[in-house]
């Protein structure tokens, strides 16, 4: 029971046990990992359970629109250098799922917790984290999500009294707005390719000026803070100016950015960047994302892209033409039911790739690609797309429920 100085009360113990039983029933019924239902049962029996479970842990919270599951995983690997870690590694990121994950780690020293954007302020209040990592904010699920700027405002209010060290992306104006109410911020230049949610100043509404990588509001003076950590090519620059090589199995610029933020978090927990970055190499795939699977005697790389910013980062990591690309888009509840966002994605970046389109909303994507002037094939299902694809490894890009469908289909 390393670090667990205060045993759980009988009520909390009962709640944890009841939660485990419910999770086991849920698993047996074939309804997924059971972590959410287990947590829900436990929280109902003991509403303070989350706070109590976190009390003996050094906690870091991770939130963002994109990259939070991967970054949580990278931080967890890095902190294992310093002791046992408990984490909601499967991406169950609302209070019930978080409670369930923590209940499974009674001997842990560190808690590395991914939090859904809407719940960040509340969870931060409950678990009094040592650090909070904020990566990026952009449009997502427009039919039901709050305004992106309102979310930043909500974070700003929720975090203003927090004693946590905030580790935040200096390149995303909305993140800077959210974080800059805190006394204790470490700024990380992690980059943000997508810019279309931060053209107006989150503070005064003025038009943002964005020369090269810099940004500032010409009217009120709100501007990019000076970062102490930075992603520079394939290196992390630490506050002392030392450059540490990033070695990842995960592809793409966005994951280098995630590794940079993770290194800054690890340093705050006493794990030096070199050690942290070496440990991150072991992360291969995260909940199926980036996994290369064999299917119908072909290699498929599975890539999740849920929103315009995610698609943009994904385009920058796929193999060059003539690598075939299969795209699958759904618009079920968890995806957001409005497909208009497809028009915010610059599909002309896919010119030269043989393209195959499937999913519930393949016709929306077909019109989008037609208007982009691209050639493509609309397919009934994955098998047909794989059969039609020319030789070579296939990149498969899908949004949330389409990605889950594909994983099930290929047995991943």
């Amino acid at each position: 029971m390393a670090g667990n100085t205060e045993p759980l009360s009988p009520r909390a113990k009962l709640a944890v046990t009841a939660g485990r039983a419910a999770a086991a029933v849920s698993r047996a019924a074939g309804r997924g990992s059971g972590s959410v239902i287990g947590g829900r049962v436990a929280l109902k029996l003991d509403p303070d359970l989350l706070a109590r479970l976190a009390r003996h842990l050094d906690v870091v919270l991770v939130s963002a629109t994109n990259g939070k599951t991967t970054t949580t995983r990278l931080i967890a690997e890095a902190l294992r250098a310093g002791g046992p870690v408990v984490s909601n590694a499967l991406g169950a990121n609302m209070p019930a799922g978080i409670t369930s994950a923590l209940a499974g780690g009674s001997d842990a020293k560190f808690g590395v917790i991914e939090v859904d954007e809407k719940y960040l302020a509340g969870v931060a209040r409950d678990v009094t984290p040592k650090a909070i990592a904020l990566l990026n904010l952009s449009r997502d699920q427009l039919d039901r999500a709050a305004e992106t700027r309102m979310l930043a405002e909500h974070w700003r209010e929720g975090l203003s009294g927090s004693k946590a060290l905030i580790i935040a992306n200096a390149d995303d104006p909305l993140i800077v707005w959210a974080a800059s109410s805190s006394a204790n911020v470490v700024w990380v230049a992690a980059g943000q390719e997508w810019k279309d949610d931060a053209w107006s100043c989150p503070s005064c509404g003025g038009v943002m000026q964005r020369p090269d990588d810099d940004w500032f509001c010409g009217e009120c003076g709100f501007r990019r803070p000076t970062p102490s950590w930075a992603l520079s090519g394939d290196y992390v620059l630490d506050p002392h100016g030392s450059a540490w090589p990033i070695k990842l199995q995960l592809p793409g610029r966005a994951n280098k950015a995630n590794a940079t933020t993770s290194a800054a978090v690890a340093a705050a927990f006493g794990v030096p960047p070199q050690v942290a970055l070496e440990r991150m190499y072991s992360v291969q795939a995260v909940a199926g994302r980036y996994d290369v699977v064999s299917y119908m005697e072909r290699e498929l790389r599975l890539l999740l892209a849920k929103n315009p910013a995610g698609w943009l980062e994904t385009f920058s990591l796929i193999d060059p033409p003539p690598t075939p690309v299969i795209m699958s888009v759904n618009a079920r509840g968890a995806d957001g039911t409005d497909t208009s966002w497809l028009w915010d994605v610059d599909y002309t970046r896919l010119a030269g790739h043989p393209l195959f389109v499937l999913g519930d909303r393949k016709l929306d994507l077909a019109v989008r690609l037609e208007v982009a002037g691209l050639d493509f094939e609309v397919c009934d299902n994955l098998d047909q797309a794989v059969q039609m694809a020319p030789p070579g490894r296939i990149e498969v890009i899908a949004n949330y429920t389409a990605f889950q469908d594909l994983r099930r289909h290929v047995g991943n």
Partner: protein
Amino acid sequence: MSDNSLRLVWVYPDLLSTYGDQGNALVVERRARQRGLDVQRLDVRSDQPIPTSGDIYLIGGGEDRPQRLAAERLLRDGGLNRAVSNGAIVFSVCAGYQILGHEFINDQDKQQQGLGLLDVVSTRGEAERCVGDVLADIDPQLNLPPLTGFENHQGVTHLGPTARPFAKVRFGNGNGVGDGFEGAWQETVFGTYMHGPVMARNPHIADLLLKLALDVNALPPADDRWYEALRQERIAAATATS
């Protein structure tokens, strides 16, 4: 139309482009080029003046605060009103549609003055937010096939005597007043609540704007295969969910 090139102005993408609104500009541009027209597309940010010599102006949807900022800046600029008095065509969506009216309710719950280019007034609905697929019949005067789109708005828009309803809904809410009307138009100014984006689901609307700009009754045919397939699917979906 000046010197054979169509000037397509996309108004304030920095503020009013939250719901894939760029799609409307892309579809109009694509369908114009497919008919052999040169297109000059001007994306005008809210710190730049609105050019008055455009042929077609597109204004998109946005969230409450950007909507207020856009209305303030458009009113101060005055260029869009001058363009319309020169005969320009304006097509607006959602927050942009409300801005073109006489007034709307802003993010601070205050009445805010619009551009008065459409004889409409928008208020905030008391009922549940209108979200979902819509199917509607467009004003017969415009001679267009049924309108399909996705609505997502709290606002309710009341038409004055000069504005004509753009469409009458079969499924969905539209303007939200309860009379079944969707959107508004008068002369060369149009407004709708439909996202999708609306031109991607209704390319005939893009063609209508081109015909008005060129002052012709017909355009050479374009390949509508994928648009038609999408339309059939969404019309069936709107019919099934209601």
